[in-house]
Each structure stands twice: as C-alpha cells, then as structure tokens.
C-alpha cells in the first residue's frame, strides 16, 4: 500500500459562539491516496464543507481546528500561518467550489487570471505563463481556447466557467484537488461533462480528488471510496460499491434507500424519520440514535468508534466485534 497523500486524523472543528462552542466536525479521520477520488457525502449540517475548509485552511473565523491533525505527504498542515498557507493552497492543493462566478474575478480576462495564478506559484515569464494558460484551457475542454483567452468570465456559460475554475485549480500542478459541490449549480448534461473531466484529469496526472457533494449518484459514478458524514462524524467509509450496495451503518442504509432512482417506481419511498440534529443539540452516544430503527441502550449512552470490517468501516455498535447483528437486522423500522 502506498503512503496516503492526505491523512486526516481525529479532526475537530469548533465554532465558539456567544451561546457556547459548536462542534461542526467531531473526530473525523480518513486518508486519500495519490490518484484516488474520495467522495465525501452527507446532508446539510453533516460537516462535509467544514472538513474541506479545514483541509485547505479556509475556515471562516471564528471557526478553528480544535484538535486532531491533517497531514499532506506526511507534513502537518493544520497549524500553518497565513503566509505558509499561501504556498500550500493553490500550489499543492487546488480548489473548485460550487459557484464558478465567486471563484473568478469579473474584471479580469480568464487568460490574465490564469497567467497570474501560474506566476504566483511558479517562476515563469509572462509569455510562457500565457502559453501555459492556453494549454490549460485546452486541457479542460474549452472549445476555441485560443480565442477565449481574452474573454471575461461573464462571456462563458456556467459549464464553461466551471471548466475555467478547474483550469485555475490546475495551474500549479497540485497533487490534491478539493472539489466542494463542483456540479451542484450545473444542469445534468453539464454535470456529467464536469465529472468526466475531473476523472480524466485525476487519471492522467495522478491527482487525488476530495469530492464533496450531497449527490450520491455523482459519487457512485465518480468516486473510488466514499466517506458518509453525519453530525460532524464519519458514519461509514469504504469502497463506493460496498457503501452503496452493502451499507453497514443504518444511516447509510436509510440514505441509500430513500434516494429515488430511474429504474423503479415504488409505491412509497423509504424515509428516515426526523432530520439531522442541530449542532446545538447533538444527541448523546451515537448522534443518529434518535432516528435509528435499530438503536439500543448502548447507542444512547456511548459513542461508537469506527469499527473496521474490511473492506469498509462503520461507526455503529452493530459492527463491534462479536456484536449480534442478526437480531438487530430483523427489527422492523
């Protein structure tokens, strides 16, 4: 097994507020290997974007990393200063966010933005940077890239803008791309173009991708492994096929069951009752226990660790060594 490129251990992100400290991310651990796409899924408030923000050093104050460690290539990056971050962000970790218009400066041509970003990280003449910018635009599939170099962001369509943002993320040849809901603002036909692009780049450059999204369909087709987050904790992590088709955590199971699909028309959709707890009122023990059809006394009292059961791992007492799963499985919801 190769060394992980990104290694997150027991990450804890806190937001101190007047009414107490909110814990948005609570003991999250995972690895991403070179060339791997790790999907991070969860519903609103699960902590997926805060995990991403911590990894790229963009937590909004007063949010802060309150515990655990983040290592990129073995080097700790969770305590970097703003100056040190500037050399890591963009250079070693590229970022793609949901809304391409907020990542692009409306007053500069895309060629200028690309060339400037390249020169920030790599010493290069303006001319060479412009040539590199053109290459990048071609690489991300902008038709007529040569003529588009001097166009402004508003002259591109939504899908093309997102391609430009991906080109920006690639400027310094990062080894990890953090993509936070990169396809959410796009139409389905464009969505597929962008995920295909991410996959191709990942394959051709051995770039790792952390793909944060709420869309399990995108994960199923794009990611190699997936981490399912709930209330700031990892509920389950494993190869995407196992997590989708043989979910272990009751939350993952419920989540997969309630997603409508094109292939069947059930009389009713399975539903998980209730909703994700607020950060101000995270239940004791397993955060999912009030909604869990299989919760028992231990779930209320004690928080389950991630139990490794290769190929995947689930934070659920049902998967503790020697746990009796048969009784629990037959319990009706």
């Amino acid at each position: 097994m190769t060394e992980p490129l990104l290694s997150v251990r027991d990450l804890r992100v806190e937001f101190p507020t007047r009414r107490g400290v909110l814990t948005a991310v609570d003991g999250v651990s995972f690895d991403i290997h070179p060339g791997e796409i790790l999907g991070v899924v969860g519903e609103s408030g699960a902590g997926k974007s805060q995990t991403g923000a911590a990894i790229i050093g963009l937590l909004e104050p007063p949010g802060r990393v309150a515990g655990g460690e983040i290592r990129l290539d073995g080097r700790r990056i969770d305590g970097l200063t703003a100056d040190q971050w500037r050399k890591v962000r963009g250079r070693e970790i590229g970022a793609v966010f949901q809304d391409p218009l907020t990542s692009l400066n409306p007053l500069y041509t895309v060629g200028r933005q690309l060339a400037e970003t390249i020169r920030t990280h790599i010493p290069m003449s303006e001319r060479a940077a412009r040539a590199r910018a053109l290459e990048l635009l071609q690489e991300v599939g902008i038709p007529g890239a040569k003529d588009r170099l001097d166009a402004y962001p508003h002259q591109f369509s939504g899908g093309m803008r997102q391609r430009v943002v991906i080109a920006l993320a690639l400027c310094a040849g990062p080894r990890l791309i953090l993509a936070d809901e990169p396809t959410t603002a796009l139409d389905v036909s464009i969505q597929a173009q962008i995920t295909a692009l991410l996959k191709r780049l990942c394959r051709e450059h051995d770039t790792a991708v952390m793909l944060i999204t709420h869309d399990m369909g995108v994960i199923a087709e794009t990611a190699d492994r997936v981490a399912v987050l709930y209330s700031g904790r990892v509920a389950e992590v494993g190869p995407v096929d196992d997590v989708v088709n043989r979910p272990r955590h009751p939350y993952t199971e419920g989540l997969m069951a309630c997603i409508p699909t094109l292939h069947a028309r059930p009389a009713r959709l399975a539903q998980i009752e209730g909703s994700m707890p607020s950060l101000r009122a995270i239940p004791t023990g397993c955060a999912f226990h009030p909604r869990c059809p299989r919760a028992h006394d231990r779930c209320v009292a004690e928080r389950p660790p991630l139990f490794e059961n290769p190929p995947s791992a689930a934070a659920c007492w049902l998967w503790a060594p020697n746990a009796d799963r048969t009784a629990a499985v037959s319990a009706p919801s």
Partner: protein
Amino acid sequence: MTAPTVPPAPNTDDPAPLVRLRGLSKHFDLSPPLLSRLLEGKRRRVLKAVDGLDLDIARGRTTALVGESGCGKSTVARMLVTLYTPTAGDLEFEGTEIGRLSDRRALAPFRRRMQMIFQDPFASLNPRWRVGRIIAEPIRAHGLMDDTTAIRRRVGMLLEHVGLRAADAERFPHEFSGGQRQRLSIARALASKPHFLVCDEPTSALDVSVQAQILNLLRDLQRELGLTYLVITHDLAVVRFIADTIGVMYLGRLCEVAPADRLFAAPRHPYTRLLIETVPDLRAPDRDRKPMAGEVPSPLDPPPGCAFHTRCPLANDRCRTERPALRPHGEGQANDGGAVACHAVEERRLPAWAPGSMLVSGSNADRTG
C-alpha cells in the same frame, strides 16, 4: 389522519382535462429602448421563454415538466397560476379560458382553486408571521371563513394533515427545519381547498432523506384529496417517482410528452434519451458514462429548425431548417398517449432504444463543448 373539512375529491373519472393548454406562449421583450433602436440601429430582442405549448393536464393525476435551466418550465408554472399573462395561446382551467383574464376579481375564483408550492421554503414564508397566520391567509384572502375559532380549528387540522402538530400554529417559521417548512407551504397551499397544485421544484432545496418524506406526503395527499399536480423539476429521479405523465421541454418547446412508464422504458426524442442517459444512477452506475456534448443554446438566439439539432447525433439538413411539430406517436390503437417533436422519429431514422446508444461521441467526449 381525518380531515372532515377537506373538499370532496374532484371527479377524477371526468375525461376532460383539468387544464388544457393550446399554443401557449410567453415572450419577454428585452429590446433596447426605442431611441437606441432608432438612433443606433439596435435590433429588437425577444426572449421566447415558452413558444407554442400544447399540453393537457389530467384530473387527479400528476403531470411533470422536466428540462434544463432556461427551458421555460417555470414560466409555464407562472402562467398556469396566472402570475404571468400569456403572450398568445389558450389556457383553459376547468373548462374556462383564464389566460386573458386580467381583472383580479374575475380571477379570484380560479386562484382559489389553484395554489403553488415554491422551491425555497425559507423565502416563501413570511418570517414575521406566526405559522397560524401564514396558513390562515388564503382562507381570509378568499373569504372562505370568518369565524376565528373555526379558522383556528381548520389551521390545526391542516397542520396535522401535513404531519405537523396543531400547536405549531403558535410558532414562527424560523423554528422549523427545511423539510418542516416545506410541509408548512403545503398546508398553506391546501388551505383554500384547491383542486390543482403547481409545485415548482418542491424538493430541490431539501436533503434527500427529507425529500423522500415530502414526496411521500405529496403522493398521500393526492390520493386522499384527489388533487391534480403539475410538478416542475430538473430531477428525473423525482419525476420517475411522482409523475403519471411527463413533458420534456427544451428551449421553450415540448419535445416529447408521454406516460411516465413509457417515457423511461422507451424514450423517443433524442433529447429525452440523452437526458436519461446522462443522469448518474446510484443503482446502476456507469463509471465510463459518456457525457452529452454541448450546452443549451441561449434562448435569446435559439437555433433554427429543431432547437436541439446542435447537440443531436441524428440531425440532418431538414432538422436544421424545419421546426418539427409535436405529433402523436403511432395512430389509433398504436398510440400510447405519447407525442414527440422529431423529424428522425417521423422518418423512422430513430435507432432502437438501448441505454448508451445515443452517446456516439468518442472517449474524449468531456472535451467537446
């Protein structure tokens, strides 16, 4: 769940559609001011958001309009609830032409019978009003009841009907989660005892576990109250679950209308096929899925002929010049209620349907734009 004040279910056996649209159009004039046109020679610009739409919405059933951004689906919804006046065409609701009524008083009886549920339950509820007042508003506005106690009782019943508690009437919208707020919007929509609900992206702002709750609720309410739905969404999986009849829109026009089961089993229009092929599916992921090439052209300057020809693998010269009409597919017995606007279908050039068959572009399809 009992609801004695709920109206008797409209007669769903009535063969006449609840809503009948013929040649419905909405054009927005985005021309520069007259002076600029005269002095600078600028041209008129007209956005044909909806351009000649024919559609029947059957009673007691769910009709869905799907399509990508800019296809005009939300404009149709707004015309249906009389928020927009159509530029041309007929809009018949329960047998009466209402598209050209502009007088509030004349529209009032129709507006009571149709209600709308919006996408964003955070923006569609007045944050300063208690829930009880929000839900009672349609009852008061339409003068359906004036006894305060009776209204309060009715609001309580509506809340329970959508899975909340009667006591929630005393609370404010911010005290509710996204899914609960969408339940509030539904309760408010039901308050005037409508026959017809227009749901514009009713679950797009919700998490999937909550989406399932709301979709199940909409289905239960339809069965109990005999409601007719028009659901506007871009999400084909949602449509698959909720719709009986589906209209697929592209650049302001319908390219295919069909019963839901038929549409997914054997889509005919190349755009419908490409849409179905492009959606990532959790149960049958295709990790080598080839994306549909190109993008939706600007509705300000739609391609001539069939608007989809720029992205269609079957397009020929006729498609580039002559606009295809929406024709019933198959005659007499062979007609399954579907209609399609495609020259390739009419000329029998359409290949048999097999998933993946339409995506002919090469392995670098993600590069094509």
